[in-house]
């Protein structure tokens, strides 16, 4: 497998060192290309859309005229989606993680659930959209409302929350549990008062990353039928809605140049929110990384 090095090569390793140095540069180029391209993307979008960012852009509704169109309805729609989605996802996801990590017997059922979660994490988001369409919009007859969207997004990000929360729970050493139980705590008390508080930063990191994924998702909402013209405030879970990514799509696929500008402006808003959330989650992870 390995190259055999002759004594000559060992003595004059200059060629090897030159090759090694060249290889290092090739790798560095590879590693930075992606970042460079994505920075070009950010620059391109800022150049296209920054001129359209104004207070009115956030307070006016969608319009047939690009100069008057704003982000109000999709902004509120996204807020509603996120609120409902976090209320639905966090208890379910953290509950499932606690069960699997702290209570589940290691038998066939548990393994089935574990494999199943790993598979669900890889199901394309648009398939969740079809599930939402078939189950919530048509099956439960909810219609194309905020609640149907939030339920769909919750199912979509649930595996991410479960996997991240499990990893956070696993990082808490067994001695903590043993200590609590030695003092007479039950399993649940040990989890509730010792393990869970220690795992909170990790759980939060996973939740923020999951929610930021949900905010950026477009495909499942379009499949639900949420691609509609909305020029009013969504006021509750049973109102029809639109969301920022959908609105970006709606503006981006119009032929007129002026709509591309506001698509770029909306993209800036979305990018600021998402990259901010991701950066916060990653900072949180590094800040609370704990050596036990």
């Amino acid at each position, binding site marked *: *497998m390995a190259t055999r090095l002759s004594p000559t090569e060992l003595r004059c390793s200059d060629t090897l060192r030159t090759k090694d140095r060249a290889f290092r540069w090739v790798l560095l180029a590879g*590693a930075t*290309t992606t970042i460079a391209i994505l920075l070009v993307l950010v620059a391109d979008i800022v150049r296209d859309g920054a001129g359209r960012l104004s207070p009115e852009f956030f307070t006016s509704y969608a319009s047939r005229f690009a100069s008057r169109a704003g982000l109000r309805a999709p902004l509120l729609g996204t807020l509603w989606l996120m609120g409902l989605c976090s209320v639905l996802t966090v208890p379910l996801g953290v509950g499932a993680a606690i069960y699997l990590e702290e209570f*589940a017997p290691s038998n066939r059922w548990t393994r089935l659930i574990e494999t199943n979660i790993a598979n*669900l994490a890889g199901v394309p988001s648009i398939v969740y959209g079809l599930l939402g369409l078939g189950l919530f919009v048509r099956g439960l007859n909810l219609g194309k409302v905020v609640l149907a969207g939030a339920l769909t997004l919750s199912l979509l990000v649930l595996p991410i929350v479960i996997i991240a929360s499990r990893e956070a729970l696993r990082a808490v050493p067994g001695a903590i549990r043993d200590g609590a139980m030695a003092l007479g705590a039950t399993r649940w008390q040990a989890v509730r008062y010792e393990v869970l508080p220690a795992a909170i930063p990790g759980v939060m990191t996973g939740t923020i990353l999951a929610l930021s994924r949900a905010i950026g998702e477009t495909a499942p909402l379009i499949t639900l039928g949420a691609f509609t013209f909305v020029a009013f405030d969504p006021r509750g879970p049973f109102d029809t809605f639109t969301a920022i990514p959908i609105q970006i799509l709606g503006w981006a696929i119009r032929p007129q140049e002026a709509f591309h500008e506001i698509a770029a402006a909306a993209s800036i808003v979305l990018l600021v929110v998402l990259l901010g959330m991701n950066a916060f989650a990653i900072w949180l992870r590094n800040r609370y990384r704990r050596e036990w």
Partner: protein
Amino acid sequence: MSATPAPTSLREGGDPALSQAVDLSHRPRPGEKVIRALLAACGVMSILTTAGIVLTLAFEAFEFFREVPVWSFVTGTNWSALIEPKAYGVLPLVSGTLMIGVLSAIVGVPLGVSTAIYLREYASPRVRNRLKPTLEVLAGIPTVVLGYFALTFVTETVLRPLFGDRIDFYNGLSAGLVVGIMIVPIIASVSEDAMAAVPRSLREGAFGLGASRMTTSLRVVLPAAMSGIAASVVLGLSRAVGETMIVAIAAGSSPRLTANPLRSIQTLTGYIVQASLGDTPQTSLEYKGVFAVGLVLFLMTLALNVASIRLVRKFRQAY
């Protein structure tokens, strides 16, 4: 990612005889049982989700296959579900999806793997601590924005001047390139995990024999981590196959059997979006066709995900 149970959890902690002995409380605790059951119910939700996906897809697809024979769906070379004359051969959509997969692999695999090698074998801790989070943050860019970028920047500014009239306004190439960039963080992160699992002694053995860092990376670490790197590639492919917004915006909506990436094509996901944007009535064949196409997509990505999970398990057990 991993499904391996933790070595230090309650259920395995300590001697069972001992924990029986110290369990002095025989007070019945009904609350504990209720909580346990509630937590288990949360776990079962995932099974219900999977069942929901399979049943929804299968039910509507079954309705579709009552009108369109499965065989002609699978082998048909003409897809025209939204305009007359109608034709329901899924191969053009599958070929479009595969084209995006191949193009994105050509871009994503070298970039992803070289990023992983650099981060793991070459970068100083300082550089790694900056580069890695940057990559992770940028991985959060929503795909609808990437799609807009593919259409306006990659096609207009980069590809049009290069190919002139030979390239369609909507084309497979720009979508494939941008999907390739999208999967770089996934490939890099899983590959890096695999390379981190290669024991230090192997590297030191190579260094001891006089190997350079390059020789060690390419001839020792890379082969040793191969199953994990393969898993990262398969996972990346699965993401590329399921990616929707980039292809829906930039690749066009012309289902055609072609190997030419300069032409406008359509993918499985692209069709689902196109059909969802219009208002197809629930009883129509187009509506049911969306679920049949979704079923094909689900099965393709399921196969890739299962392969990737298997490969990851293999490299986890290697050392």
